């Protein structure tokens, strides 16, 4: 999926690097060097996502974000910043950001996160009672899952993991994303918790026959096929 991305970053070199990295994933990018330019740019163009630096001269990232949200522009915004404290993250999310990522970030991880944000916007808005990804169906309200209409008995963590994979079926979910969303951790454990649970989930999903619907992207994360 090719995206049209607005990069708001005062460090020109860094902005160029980001643009080049995004170009590797076939995304189109526009660079705005400060908050005022970014505001002027955003109202004129249809962007799929915004990568926003937090600290900029003239208008800082959070102020820019508040203006954007007040203008009812609902584009997904990912704050990319050197400020990684928990309190700073909360500030960013409260200001209206969709994701908060600490520099530096692996381009693969950034790409995965942008895709997840754009996909989340494409949902119909209300989370329906059941969600489908290929032959897998989950009910977030009933905490039940089925493959080929056969119920799969999943413990809590495995169920949450599958739900997240189904929500983002067709896109990559990185380990940090899964740890944030499934485990609600703001740190990365040193053991392979995610891998262990993916292994368990795979076993459960393939117990009743059928091939493995989860693919591993080594060094990046996991993806459930659509």
């Amino acid at each position: 999926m090719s995206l049209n991305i607005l990069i708001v970053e005062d460090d020109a070199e860094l902005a160029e690097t980001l643009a080049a990295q995004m170009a590797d994933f076939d995304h189109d990018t526009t660079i705005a060097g400060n908050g005022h330019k970014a505001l002027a740019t955003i109202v004129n163009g249809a962007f799929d996502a915004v990568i926003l630096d937090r600290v900029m001269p003239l208008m800082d990232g959070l102020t820019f974000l508040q203006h954007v949200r007040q203008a009812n522009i609902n584009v997904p915004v990912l704050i990319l910043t050197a400020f990684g404290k928990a309190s700073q993250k909360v500030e960013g999310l409260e200001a209206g950001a969709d994701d908060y990522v600490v520099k530096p970030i692996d381009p693969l991880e950034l790409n995965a996160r942008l895709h997840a944000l754009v996909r989340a916007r494409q949902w119909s808005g209300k989370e329906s009672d059941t969600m489908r990804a290929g032959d897998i169906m989950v009910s977030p309200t009933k905490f039940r899952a089925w493959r080929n209409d056969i119920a799969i008995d999943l413990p809590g963590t495995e169920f949450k993991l599958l739900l997240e994979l189904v929500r983002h079926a067709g896109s990559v979910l990185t380990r940090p994303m899964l740890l944030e969303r499934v485990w609600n951790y703001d740190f990365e454990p040193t053991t392979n918790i995610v891998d262990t649970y993916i292994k368990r989930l795979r076993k459960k999903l393939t117990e009743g026959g059928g091939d493995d619907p989860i693919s591993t992207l080594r060094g990046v994360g996991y993806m459930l096929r659509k």
Partner: protein
Amino acid sequence: MRLSGFSLRRLTLAFLSLLLLSTVATGVGIYSVTVRTIRQLVDTRIRQISVTLAPDGEPHDRAELIRRIAEMNRQRDTGDLGIILVAPGHRQLAGNVRLSRDLPPGLASVDLGDNIKGLSKGRALVRDLPDGLRLIVVAETEPFDQYDRARIRIYMGGFGSILAIVLGGLILFSRMVSRRITAMRDTVATIIEGDMSQRVPVTGDGSEFDLQAAAFNRMLDRIQVLMAEISNVSNDISHELRTPLTRLRGRLALLHKQAESDGAREGIGAALEDADDLLGMFTAILRISEIESGERRRGFAPVDLAELASEIVAMMEPVAEDSGHDLTLVNWTPATIIGDRKLLAQLLLNLVENALRHTPPGTAIAATVTRTGGHAEITVTDTGPGIPPAQRAVALRRFGRLGHGGAAGHGLGLALVDAIARLHGGEVRLDSPGQGLRISIILPME
């Protein structure tokens, strides 16, 4: 004089005792000097009177003596005198008072018991004259009636008010001192807990204490600046090194994907893992510095450690199973503390991960949550190789990796645990229940 060996309390007590002693001594001194002086004056006076009436070495005319006595008794300024002339056989020849007992010759004290009219305390001079006559002169030693009671009132009022003022001042002073010192100690305690933003209150009265508090605060400002600089340096290093490392990791990941031979893929995979380890180390350094800044304290809320531990242990069981370990929560008592749930989850996870990493497959790992007094205690015990007592302190230090086992990890796991425990006012203890290692986290319950 060396005073440093005495406590303030003992010095105060000693000072008060001295004050009391000197007050009593002054009172007693004034009393006895006054009494003695008055007695001497009275003695001199009655001797003069006696000699005036009957000069020594002169023959006495009994009638003349009686006349002189009567005349003297009439004079106004001798109204407080008693003069008695007694003939042999106790016959009183003249006099304005009566004695109820015989007094020996010379000076003697008389009091109420002598039943002398109008006299409560006094002195008497008894002189034997030729012809068997005896002349007795009595005078009061009290300037007015019930002088003793008045004197007690004066002493009590005077010295009592001095004592009251000194005591009151002392109490006020010590309260003031202790209030200021307590304020300083409270500040220090909060700083020890990690809140460097606290300062000693300055009242603005320009007192020694204010100057002291201001100097103390300036010192804290300076320490805070230095600490921030150190923290900035380590943060900067971590940030700056993370950028090229992330780039390196990205290239390795790309190469890994494109690798044509299995050998190359394996080598690049190992390099990728090294890069991940390094990135993990920088993340941990930044995390420890975030925790040590004490900022997370703002988000503190009640957390039940037993519930959290059972959640973490249940979550880690499959991981432990994969590595051939036997992980169980053997004992848990509800223990709610005020803390940061995510950090406490990280603490528990780190303890379990630490045990998994440093013990061979087949090792049993047992976790407990208990309560003793006002404290909650989390323990994670393994039956692995343990840590020799001499190296236990090293284990909690940053990069305090121990030489044995060649186990992976960046040596920051327990330093992180220690930082989280300290943020919650707790401590980490390492010991061995016979075999293996037991790590205990003792956290205060509020």
